[in-house]
């Protein structure tokens, strides 16, 4: 099996991460913000796996499993919060929820 050069993998991860980051920054719907967060996390995971295969170590995949768990927990908590927020503000617009301003 031909090796995918590490640069390609990392580049893909960086592009994914940036896409996610831009999504977090520009989207107003909380659901989409959460989705974009997922993308960013997966980008990080991808970077781990690429690095792991480059050095022939299992650690990268271990870390990806960790990230997967964390993501699952984060998504469940996040969605619960989204439900709660929707219940309270009747909207999913993140900008509407700015009660913490100084």
């Amino acid at each position, binding site marked *: 099996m031909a090796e995918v050069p590490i640069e390609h993998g990392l580049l893909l991860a960086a592009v994914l991460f940036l896409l996610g980051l831009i999504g977090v920054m520009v989207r107003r719907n909380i659901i989409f*913000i959460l989705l974009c967060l997922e993308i960013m996390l997966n980008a990080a995971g991808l970077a781990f796996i690429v690095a792991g295969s480059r050095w022939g170590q299992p650690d990268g995949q271990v870390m990806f499993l960790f990230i997967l768990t964390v993501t699952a927990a984060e998504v469940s908590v996040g969605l619960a919060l989204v439900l709660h927020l929707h219940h309270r503000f009747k909207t999913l617009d993140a900008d509407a929820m*700015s009660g913490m301003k100084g």
Partner: protein
Amino acid sequence: MYSLIWLVPIVPFAGFLLLAFAGRYLPRRAVAIIGPGAVGLSAAVMLLISGQFLAAPPAGYAYEQTLWSWIATGGLEVGFTLYLDPLSVVMGCVITVVGFLIHVYATAYMAEDEGYSKFFAYMNLFVGAMLLLVLGQNLLVLYLGWEGVGLCSYLLIGFWYKKPENGAAAMKAFIVTRIGDVALLIGLFLLVVQFGTLDIPAILAAAPGAWAVGAPAAVAAALLLLGGAVGKSAQLPLQTWLPDAMAGPTPVSALIHAATMVTAGVYLIARLHALFALAPGALLLVGIIGAATLLLAAFSALAQHDLKRILAYSTISQLGYMFLALGVGAWTAALFHFMTHAFFKALLFLGAGAIIHSLRDEQNIFRMGGLRRRLPAVYWTFLAGALALAAAPLITAGFYSKDLILFAAWVSPVGNRWLWGAGLLGAFLTALYTFRMVFLVFHGPERTAPHGRPGPAMTVPLMILALLSLLGGFVETPADLGGVHLFSSFLGHALPGLAAHGSPALEAALQLLSTVAVLGGIALAYQLYLRRREATARWLARPAPDAARRLLLAGWGFDWLYDRLFVRPFVWLATVNKDDSVDAFFRGLARASLLLHGALSRAQTGNLRWYAVGFALGVMALLAIVVFR
């Protein structure tokens, strides 16, 4: 017998406590017994002790009684100690006897006042404090009495406290004398540091050995003590409080502001004569202050129209005589004049009080007149006092004491002709203003009708004081008029006598000169204020004399000057800085942090995506630092 000396100050204090705590529940008759009774008892003990002092004086003419140890630390030991020597005997007797007479007088004078018991409480406190002042063996007990009489003076000047101007006069008296007191206090520090003690006999014994004549430390000590004396005795430049002090009830003016408290400065200098003898410069200054004060005050007395203010300026002037005597080293002459002055000035004030009382609080002499026939008892006693004040020759006590001072000023090695001349001019002015007062008040047409005559409680003290004013001088007469030296030989055990003696011929010549001055003054007063009163009034209405009159009326404008120099700047400084400019710094600090807080909190929008951007930028910045470092 001597061991009973503690009773003398304690009894008035006990009277004070009784009246202060129980006064309001006691009937007036009881107050009228307790108040004068306490002072009377004290006077009786004092006289008994003095009698024994004359008959069988203690060893060294001094007796000490330590009541308890007051402060003993760091090498300083101050006992609460009383001291009896000829000087304190003379002072104590005059204070208690005159004080008792004035208390008796006041039972009638104050009879209708609502603060009857309060008045006698304060008066008793005053007598007690004054006795501590003169009986104190060390300077700290003296200072206790010194401030105590200042307090009582304040309380009694402001006795009718509902009028704000009385309160202002009281505050002025306390604050001005306090300025002198601070000088005195610093003088005490100097003495302690120098001698390690405040005991007067020890200081007097050690001073001549420690300091050469004219040593800077001696001069400094003498000047500081003089500061205290000047404040208490209302001499230049701290004399301004005394005329205003007349706001108090008249017995107070008689007791505190004429007979006793204001002479405390004279007492202080006489008591510490050895220090002043070591500081000829300071001593000369005492004489100059005395001469200047006696002239300025006598001129001012000429222009006053308030009966009590005339007497107040006259008191300042007579105190100037005492300072003059001290300044030429004639300690006993000063004390002699203190004694006679206590008699005749108390008499004059009490007489003035009787007049004011029966005229229903009229104090302007130009609205009085012809009282000679309506108030004969007051007239004759007042006349005796006026003669004594004017030093009418041969028959009055004032003549002998003032003559002694003038003689001393001439012959003393530290005296000079200028001081003598000032005294002589002062004698002329004294006679002039005294008889101006007498003629305007008692002679001429009647202007305000008196209501009733004073009762015996008022007239009997007047008569006793009149007798003392006339006869009190015969304890000390000049060589050509009997040469009695009872007073000076008694005081000679405590105070050194005058070094120089003049010939009898010189003495007679000086007496003749002062007699001429006094009689001239009386004659001029007769011309100006009785025979040609209208002409005098017309002349005085012209611009130039009127301006002079107003300057004198205002006491040479010292009040105006001090107001501009001290009072206004102080008040201005205080009001400008009322909100504490130091706090402005801390308030500014608080405001700056609020401002910063506002700026930073503006960045906290509450907008989630905004935070995310900030977060991302921050991470990128960190990464950039790590990567490109």
